[in-house]
């Protein structure tokens, strides 16, 4: 009993033992992750008049704007899918990603008090913002289902691909949350750059257009952006205008997992002295 809970606190190092400790700490504090995520959602909507409606208002508003721009002013090819559905099902994973990462980036600096005074695995803070974004995604999913019924879009046999696609999106969002939030502790520029970055990033992902619109010779570079594989394949899984594009999804998964490992290592190393500089 005593030996199982024995703990040795050492200076941070890039050793296996150091990171194994990190993982076991996180497991021990899983109830905190759960409680904080729950409260994050609850507090966010507690004093707003529209409440949960905010979770769908943003993707809906975007959908209207892009529908006017890209199916009324100018026509973007959608392989016969009604443009509102075409863009909305891309906006779901995109909004999830951008909300999660942008909010998580400031999660450590926004809880300076806590970090300076209480010990807990710090990655829990960015994680809670990612989970709150998952919650928003689920609500927006209900709206999507309604739209599909309205436009008469049939369910596809490849629908189950939604799960692996979202898993990749989750891994990627988590890894960027770790990376940006820990960098933000040293460089407050991160949260200032976030709106610009997310805007550019959205147009670098097949949200308002489809992957087919990207010239073949740039495709290899283009799919290095994991959100390309995520957004395009999420849309394909839902509306089924084309089979799942395995290369882009595989590249998204590979980049995300690699980045997750790297950013977790960086985060845990930074964490050891985070309380001193925050």
């Amino acid at each position: 009993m005593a030996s199982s809970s024995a703990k040795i606190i050492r200076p941070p190092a890039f050793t296996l033992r150091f990171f194994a400790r990190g993982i076991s700490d996180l497991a021990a504090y899983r109830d905190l992750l759960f409680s904080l995520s729950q409260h994050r959602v609850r507090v966010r909507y507690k004093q707003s008049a529209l409440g949960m409606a905010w979770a769908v208002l943003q993707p809906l508003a975007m959908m209207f704007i892009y529908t006017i721009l890209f199916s009324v002013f100018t026509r973007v090819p959608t392989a016969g899918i009604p443009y509102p559905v075409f863009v909305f099902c891309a906006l779901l994973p995109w909004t999830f990603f951008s909300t999660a990462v942008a909010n998580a980036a400031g999660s450590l600096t926004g809880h300076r008090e806590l970090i300076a005074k209480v010990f807990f695995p710090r990655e829990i803070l960015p994680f809670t913002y990612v989970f709150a974004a998952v919650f928003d995604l689920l609500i927006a999913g209900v709206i999507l289902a309604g739209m599909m019924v309205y436009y008469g879009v049939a369910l596809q046999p490849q629908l189950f691909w939604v799960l692996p696609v979202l898993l990749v999106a989750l891994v990627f969002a988590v890894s960027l949350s770790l990376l940006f939030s820990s960098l933000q502790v040293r460089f407050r520029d991160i949260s200032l750059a976030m709106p610009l970055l997310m805007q550019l990033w959205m147009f670098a992902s097949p949200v308002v257009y489809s992957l087919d619109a990207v010239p073949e010779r740039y495709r290899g570079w283009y799919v290095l952006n994991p959100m390309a594989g995520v957004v395009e394949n999420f849309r394909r899984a839902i509306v089924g205008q084309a089979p799942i594009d395995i290369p882009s999804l595989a590249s998204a998964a590979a980049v995300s997992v690699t980045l997750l490992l790297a950013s977790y290592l960086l985060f845990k190393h930074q964490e050891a002295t985070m309380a001193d500089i925050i």
Partner: protein
Amino acid sequence: MIDLAFLNVSKRYRIPSETAPPPGLLGRLRHRVARPSTDFWAVRDVSFEISKGESVGVIGHNGAGKSTMLKLLSSITAPTQGEIHVNGRIAALLEVGSGFHPELTGRENVYLGGALLGMRRAEITSKLDRIVEFAGMSRFIDVPVKRYSSGMYVRLGFSMAAHLEPDILLLDEVLAVGDASFQDKCLGRIEQLRNSGITIVFISHDLMAVQRLCSRVLLMQQGQLAGSGTAEEMIHRYHEISRFQNTRSVERDITGARAASTGIEFLSPAGDSLTALPSGGPVLFRLKYETREAVAKVRFLVVVQSLDDVVQFTLDSRLAGRLYDLPAGGGEVDFHIDSLPLRDGFYRIDTVLYTEYEAEALDYQPRCATVQVQGERVREGLYYVPQRVDVRPVPVVSSRS
């Protein structure tokens, strides 16, 4: 069995220098990434062991490294060198209220705060009633904590941590807050935990509480362990460190100053040195000074402050009606107090020397001494007020038990 050990632990802070960044975007960036800094060792090569079931106090002056030690023990920050061994579940009671979320109710915050202290959800549920009852908050538990008073905040926070049942409990200045009756309750609860075999590390300025709770005391001085021993020994050493060193020479002591205070003594009216001052009793503060040259119209001040830096009163030689022309050399100033209005506790002393003609002080010695006041424990309030009591009609006097 060893519960807690520091093995040659050091902690370095880098204090960034305040130089202006070079011009240009690239220069700013480089400056931000590799800013020149100076090193400050808050804790330097500290080693000690604490056995299971011991209750150990850590005392020391501000900047001695106490809070850094607490942060290291509770894993808030990592050591720069050395190793810390912790055997068992550790719970730090550092301003627990800081984990509270203002929008959430007391109940929701107990779950959140409990989770922050590493408690499982089921564990909190099973203890919720006892926590709420101990804090005396059952009426307010479903009110958002932003409506709480600071006292309620602290009570709930302490109550949570006190029911955590860790193997090792870290205590900060938590007892400095809340009213006297709640403080007594907290101390009682901590004694109860201690008697049940929990290891306690108590880091505090409140020497009386340290004395009451701790079988052993570690004395920190300038980041290093200056001693380890019984509470009495270490508290005595603590006072020794805090007193003026009366041997300091004028030349070294008051470089640039024409006059300076060099010591303060606390005496009985008969002139006997006192280790603790009696609340309400007659005392004599003797301020020693030295002058390098003759200084005209000097005014002496002794400022008495509580440990949380609230000025209690000022002894001022001008209140006695005059300023003094001092010859070169040195001497003493006696402040006679008929009835000391301080309640029991510890107080810090500042001394100041002014001359009438200058706005700037001739000499200012902040926190140059710490003094203990003893007396009947004042239940609530800041002062000890000497008093006589008459009850009419004259009752049958029941003798005090």
